[in-house]
């Protein structure tokens, strides 16, 4: 079975470490915050200028001056800090954020990522995504392995305009966990019950498959 959105978030949450500063992109990456292991301290960075993002507010706590990068009302955790956009992107571009998790349309064997623009459709902009992929060393891309029409999103070469060049090393899809090295995808783990053959079939870019591919457990 392909992983659910929640299982994808749970799997990524296992990459967290105590004391990590983490930036979670909009969409499935946001769900990772629900699976921070007990006893582990993680600070969430929101690129509009908040380090230590907390839960959504209760009705009584709603404050128009407290929002996250998705423009949702939020709270701050104890020990949070708030700062300007320039300061926020100094953290991001200066490589101070320990882990960045974001979605994508396509990733290729060269570590290129396309995530912000589909030509001919509505063009809204890259927001902070180009800064995040250029500035972070430890990035996990979270996306489905193939489109609804069955077309692979793990490619030899991205077809859409790039968000960043040569910056992606780890990808978690609903079918597999893969790493990118030496111009190839490397299959590291597979979703429970998903065959290696299915992953090979749905991966357009060159894929290295070891003799044994462990199944994820939940």
């Amino acid at each position: 079975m392909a992983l659910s959105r929640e299982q994808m978030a749970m799997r990524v949450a296992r990459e967290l470490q105590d004391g990590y500063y983490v930036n979670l992109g909009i969409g499935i990456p946001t769900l990772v915050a629900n699976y921070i292991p007990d006893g582990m301290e993680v600070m969430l960075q929101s690129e509009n200028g908040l380090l230590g993002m907390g839960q959504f507010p209760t009705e009584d706590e709603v404050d128009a001056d407290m929002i996250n990068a998705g423009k949702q009302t939020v709270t701050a955790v104890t020990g949070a800090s708030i700062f300007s956009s320039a300061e926020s992107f100094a953290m991001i571009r200066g490589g101070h954020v320990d882990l960045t998790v974001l979605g994508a349309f396509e990733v290729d064997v060269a570590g290129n990522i396309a995530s912000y623009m589909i030509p001919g459709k509505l063009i809204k902009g890259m927001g902070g995504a180009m800064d995040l992929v250029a500035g972070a060393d430890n990035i996990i891309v979270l996306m489905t392995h193939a489109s609804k029409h069955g077309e692979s999103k793990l490619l030899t070469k991205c077809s859409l305009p790039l968000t960043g060049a040569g910056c992606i090393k780890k990808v978690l899809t609903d079918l597999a966990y893969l790493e990118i090295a030496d111009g190839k995808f490397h299959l590291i783990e597979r979703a429970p019950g998903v065959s290696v053959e299915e992953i090979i079939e749905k991966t357009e870019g060159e894929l290295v498959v070891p003799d044994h591919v462990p199944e994820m457990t939940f």
Partner: protein
Amino acid sequence: MSGFDKVVNSYEEAMAGLDNDMTVIAGGFGLCGIPEGCIAQIKRMGVKGLTVVSNNCGVDGFGLGVLLEDKQVKKMISSYVGENALFMKQLLEGELEVELTPQGTLAEKMRAGGAGIPAFYTATGYGTLVGEGKDVREFNGRNYILEESITGDFAIVKGWKADRYGNVIYRHTAQNFNPMAATAGKITVVEVEEIVEPGELDPSQIHTPGIYVDRLIQGTFEKRIEQRTVREA
């Protein structure tokens, strides 16, 4: 106005001198921390052909979105736009130009502009459409593109509190782009919720020192929420 007293008493006075085809830098992220009163005054003045530098362009009927209604904006320099139908319509019909700029690069363009730095190298956007046609230079084995900084004829800024000398404090995430915008205007207009006397704010807690501020006005703010998300109490 005298000495260091930056207080003006009307938005007419605050925005005096704004003319057609000028560049306006605006603070705010989404609808959070936007200079509502200055935007409303720009609409009343009816100036056209503006280049507006702001992370976003408001929504239909609120924030910078209201300047689209009478086609006052020629060009937006932003990282994320199109939360408003009118924006997309004018863009598709060629009545509006947009220069999409990565959010961190946009913040740094304002910061550098205000700090007298004409351009800077950044890895952000290298190898993408953003980097096309820009100078590339390698430092320590990595490629960077040259980005030019931004200054404006006017900067419009929303603060929380300020003293009469224009020393400003922002509140929570309504800070966002406001401190950088404040440094990058030839004329910087700050509107705040409360003006206090000099000495009432702790000097070491000031976000924007008064040297950057030309005009200060006390406003009233709707503070509309774009995405109201709550949890059960």
